[in-house]
């Protein structure tokens, strides 16, 4: 009975797509193994949404080919549609309708008879903690509830491939965790998930493999571990009580860590990348030693943290530009649509 599939869920080669003068996709290659969560990581305007829309048959590529479970997304769009579901960046449900009405509507469109559609809707609403809100219009839902009804709508037919376009953007931490749990449950049941995100930690938490996308291309691909080790496993962030001690702190840190220390715009803050590939010590040991050295030097530290590299840092390491300016491209893209 299981529809678990093996092999590749998505194979894309050289996908291109432009909007006016803006190249949203500049030759994307993707190979997504079935039964996994695959992360597309990149800033706004990198081309993630365009890639998802092409793969979900909503947009025709200008060039290149893409297959979903072996079906071409252009010439066999209908076969692809039978196996995928999409949760877009903006609510892909009708905000004027209630939760129940939305799910019954979609269940009917998937071919369920009215009583079966009602049962399915009720079961999904219960599983997603929306039973109390089932008769309320979706526009009255909170952000987290909207996301949940959206995902519930996407798994009505237990798709083989689920596209989630920035599913947690704009959610509070609790709602985000709920969505993560749901995604884990979905993939545990054999559905392949293609997830786009701007957050490295989200991709790290969920995805088996990640493709980093920038300017419409995949600039790096691998497991989260591989990606992070390519930029160093962590970053030490430090805030001092006294800005006058910063030059001293910089020297101590540099000596302790053996890496260049960056001075941040904030006059009490410093930053250093630790755990670079090739060093003997792991990141936490290096950081602990640095903290000890600072204390011995009489430097008062108010705030000390060791974290994963941010998306910005991954970007800086992989490209030579920060992730932020692409926002402007995004605006152009929006305008071009």
């Amino acid at each position: 009975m299981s529809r678990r599939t093996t092999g590749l869920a998505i194979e894309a080669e050289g996908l291109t797509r432009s909007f006016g003068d803006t190249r949203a996709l500049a030759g994307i290659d993707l190979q997504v193994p079935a039964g996994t969560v695959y992360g597309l990581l990149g800033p706004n305007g990198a081309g993630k949404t365009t890639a998802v829309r092409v793969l979900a048959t909503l947009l025709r590529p200008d060039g290149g080919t893409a297959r979903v479970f072996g079906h071409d997304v252009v010439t066999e769009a209908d076969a692809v549609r039978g196996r995928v579901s999409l949760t877009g960046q903006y609510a892909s449900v009708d905000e004027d309708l209630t939760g129940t009405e939305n799910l019954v509507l979609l269940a009917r469109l998937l071919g369920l008879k009215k009583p079966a559609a009602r049962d399915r809707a009720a079961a999904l609403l219960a599983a997603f903690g929306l039973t109390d809100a089932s008769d309320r219009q979706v526009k009255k839902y909170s952000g987290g509830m909207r996301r949940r009804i959206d995902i519930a709508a996407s798994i009505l037919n237990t798709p083989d491939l689920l596209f989630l376009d920035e599913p947690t953007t704009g959610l509070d931490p609790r709602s985000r965790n709920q969505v993560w749990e749901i995604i884990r449950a979905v993939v545990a049941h054999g559905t392949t998930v293609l997830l786009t995100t701007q957050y490295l930690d989200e991709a790290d938490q969920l995805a088996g493999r990640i493709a980093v996308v920038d300017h419409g291309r995949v600039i790096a691909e691998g497991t989260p571990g591989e990606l992070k080790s390519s930029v160093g496993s962590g970053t030490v962030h430090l805030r001092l009580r006294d800005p006058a001690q910063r030059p001293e702190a910089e020297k101590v840190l540099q000596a302790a860590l053996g890496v260049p220390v960056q001075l941040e715009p904030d006059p009490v803050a410093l930053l250093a990348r630790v755990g670079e590939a090739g060093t003997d010590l792991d990141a936490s040991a290096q950081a602990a030693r640095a903290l000890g050295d600072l204390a011995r030097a009489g430097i008062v530290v108010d705030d000390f943290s060791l974290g994963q590299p941010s998306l910005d840092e991954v970007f800086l390491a992989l490209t030579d530009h920060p992730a932020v300016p692409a926002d402007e491209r995004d605006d152009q893209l929006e305008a071009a649509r």
Partner: protein
Amino acid sequence: MSNATTTERAPSVYVPSAEALATVLAPGARPPRPSALGASLTFGWRAMLKIKHVPEQLFDVTAFPIIMVLMFTYLFGGALADSPRDYLQFFLPGIMVTSVVMITMYTGIGLNTDIEKGIFDRFRTLPVWRPAALVGMIFGDVLRYILAALVILGVGLALGFRPDGGVAGVAAGIGLLVVFSFAFSWVWTFFGLILRSEKSVMGVSMMVLFPLTFLSNVFVEPSTMPGWLQAFVNVNPVTQLVAAVRASMSGSSDPSSVMWLLAWSAGFVVVFGTLTMYRYNRR
């Protein structure tokens, strides 16, 4: 939750349960796809639900037609006929056609705003008959057309409209009007898809609808017009429609107008339905 009473009205927090999710995720047999008509009717049901939740959207099919009937009956009635009541016998089928044909433009405006929202992305990734979402939307609009026609009929009857065709003639007239309006709506789905904003759809609609409805036999007999205008009026589909509806409501029949209006209707569906679906698929 056992401790729910101890906290001060804390809303119960949703905790995703793996077991509950597992139950709904268990893949069942996929049901067969709905038929083209079934899918369209389901989309039509969506339109009904939207009317239920946003009843204000019925203003344009109730208030607007009433104003049209009252305004023109009393504006032209004295000048063009012996009395508003006499004029109404000639005018009511025409103003009914004008109002309903004008209301068809809301199909385009509605689609233009609707399609910007994420819900259409979901519809377009469903494995259903492609035109169903649009056909269903127009089914919903057809109900609005019928409502508008009935409102106008009601106002007309109250003001003294007495159709010789009786119930059957009036029903047949409204039927012809609905058939034409369904077909004509495809013009607006096309414009709703190609134009960028609701405002531009409105602008184009007005530019098309004013000449189409006013340069016709709705208000006066075409024989009073200059020859070049008569030439346009006579090929105008609205003229054919009004002639057919007028004949039907007055208890006679006008087979040539009926034939023309059905030909026009078929043409609109074929040409603009095709263009609409082309744009819809390629958006």
